[in-house]
């Protein structure tokens, strides 16, 4: 009698620190941010009285375009990162352990340098007098554009560079657990290499794909250092606006409202996707049950 109770308590004890952490550093701040949006601001940079003035001020005609641009760029960055990371993860998982350690290590190596320094390095490379720009000019890449710097392309390029390791790592972890003899089995049954990769490998690492997408998309949505340093005035994202309102204008409620809008506009499509997936699963289950029922009635009929 007592043992399930005791194990229940043990479970609570083990999970309590994570819950506490989540509550203190995620749930409570989220609620505070939401609460700020229903306050005015005062000139000294503090949070004012309860009011709806912040929401009323939010009708800036620029915002919808900026939010849309942020989502578009984040999706682009996510797609590029996944497209590059999947073959990497596949290759690393198929290497012998020695090489695997070396390559995995060198992927993590850039993290030893400060993120801002690395982004700044890109700034010098992409500068009109930088060597990368010189190469582009040499091969006439970029057409009429005289510079990559201060463009959306620069933001996407450097974002992919920055977030790629976050995509490779979960994909590699999934690929490492993948049973590669399944690809052999698929080939044995008549599949070409790419078909086996698409139909067997990709579904096999789907958990890793989901993590990788989240690991890239979420920081991309909130990113402001990269567009700030490389996008110039041509690529202003919502992160820059939030930064501007919070630090330069000292309008914390306004920044909070923007962050809330951003979060909601990302959560709605994710919620819809989850709802759709659940409906699909329910349909599959129904199909399964119908099949089984049909079978049993068929058998019953045969028995009579």
């Amino acid at each position, binding site marked *: 009698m007592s043992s399930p109770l005791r194990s229940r308590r043990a479970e609570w004890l083990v999970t309590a620190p994570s819950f506490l952490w989540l509550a203190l550093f995620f749930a409570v701040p989220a609620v505070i941010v939401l609460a700020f949006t229903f306050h005015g601001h005062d000139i000294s940079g503090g949070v004012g009285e309860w009011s709806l003035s912040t929401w009323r001020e939010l009708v800036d005609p620029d915002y919808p375009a900026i939010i849309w641009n942020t989502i578009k760029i984040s999706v682009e960055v996510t797609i590029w990162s996944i497209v590059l990371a999947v073959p990497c993860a596949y290759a690393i998982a198929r290497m012998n352990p020695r090489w695997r350690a070396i390559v995995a290590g060198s992927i993590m190596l850039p993290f030893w340098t400060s993120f801002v320094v690395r982004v700044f390095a890109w700034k010098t490379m992409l500068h009109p007098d930088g060597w990368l720009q010189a190469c582009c000019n040499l091969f006439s890449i970029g057409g009429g554009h005289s510079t990559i710097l201060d463009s959306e392309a620069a933001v996407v390029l450097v974002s992919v560079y920055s977030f790629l390791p976050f995509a490779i790592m979960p994909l590699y972890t999934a690929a490492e657990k993948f049973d590669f003899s399944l690809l052999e089995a698929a080939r044995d*049954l008549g599949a070409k290499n790419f078909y086996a990769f698409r139909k067997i490998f990709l579904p096999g690492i789907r958990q890793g794909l989901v993590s990788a997408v989240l690991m890239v998309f979420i920081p991309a949505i909130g990113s402001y250092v990269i567009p700030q340093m490389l996008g110039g005035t041509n690529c202003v994202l919502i992160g820059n606006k939030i930064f501007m309102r919070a630090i330069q204008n000292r309008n914390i409620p306004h920044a909070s409202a923007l962050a809330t809008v951003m979060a909601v506009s990302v959560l709605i499509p994710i919620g819809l996707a989850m709802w759709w997936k659940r409906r699909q699963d329910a349909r599959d289950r129904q199909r399964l049950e119908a099949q089984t029922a049909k079978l049993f009635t068929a058998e019953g009929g045969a028995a009579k």
Partner: protein
Amino acid sequence: MNSEFLVFDHVTKRFGALTAVNDVSFSVKKGEFFSLLGPSGCGKTTLLRMLGGFEKPDSGRIYLEGRDITDLAPNERRVHTVFQNYALFPTMTIWDNIAFSLRLAKLPKKEIEEKVDAILDMIQMSEHAWKYPNQLSGGQKQRVAIARALVDRPKVLLLDEPLAALDLKLRQHMLLELDTIHDQVGITFMYVTHDQGEAMSLSDRIAVINRGRIEQLDGPAKIYEAPSSRFVASFIGDTNFFSGEIVAKDGDYCTIRPDGFPDIRAYNDKQLEVGQKVDLSVRPEKIRVTLAPPPPEKGASINVYPSTVQDIVYQGVYTKYWISSSGVRVAALKPHSRFLLDQEPITWNDKVFVWWHPDDGYMVESEK
């Protein structure tokens, strides 16, 4: 080039310094249940993987129905494999697993449904069609793996130790089932195993493989009763070896003088000459163990040796004895066809007679 169904023609495969398959040639008949039997690392799996297209031989060719398939990719040959770990696709239902090759062949939907349903019915798994592989037991997975490989009727089905992961009871059951499936589909089966029991009970013919070469290729009974080498005799079942020199010949029989053992009479089927060295293999079940000397009607020519019982292992169906005869340890099996408890049992240190008929020993020439 060759009219036989499946031909391995002087095939050699090396991995670095190791020669896994050494100049192997054999052919398989259409519809045959053919086994490659040998200890682990003997090269039998390499042979199978070369037939599946996963390895390329360093030299030699492989022909299927007269066509050279040596350089074809796995997806280009009508040869399917049942893998040891089943290799079922975990993200697909059983139904989709089985339909995989049919969909690749772009068959009409209706035909795919008919074929998959028919084979599910054959392996009696229809009610599990919409489950996923991890919801099945080992035996069920095994059946699905076989169905998946058979559904588009390959020319050859390769089975790589398919029963190794199952427990004993299930293994015996699956043996019968494999045999039934083979009879039903009439497809050529190529079966790799290290278990001589499996190979013996299923195969039309067995190739016994050792160190990259075929030691013997024959039917199961011939391999057991008339092993071509000392290796085959000892790998297939238990046996007693007596190594010695032929000292006399009389008609079809000869007398062998082993080192440290009395003379043995044996049937000289190979017509070997006096002075030749031989290994005589006498299977334990051919050896009689009795408290009384053998009855005189057995004739004067049988081999009889007074001995002492050393060890006894009672195993229900039979008892296994280890008997010291002139200082040599001899294994013998005694089946219990009569009610055992009424008999005077043989026990430890009993003085017994060990005897066998000269026809029951089998001579293999000593390896040089």
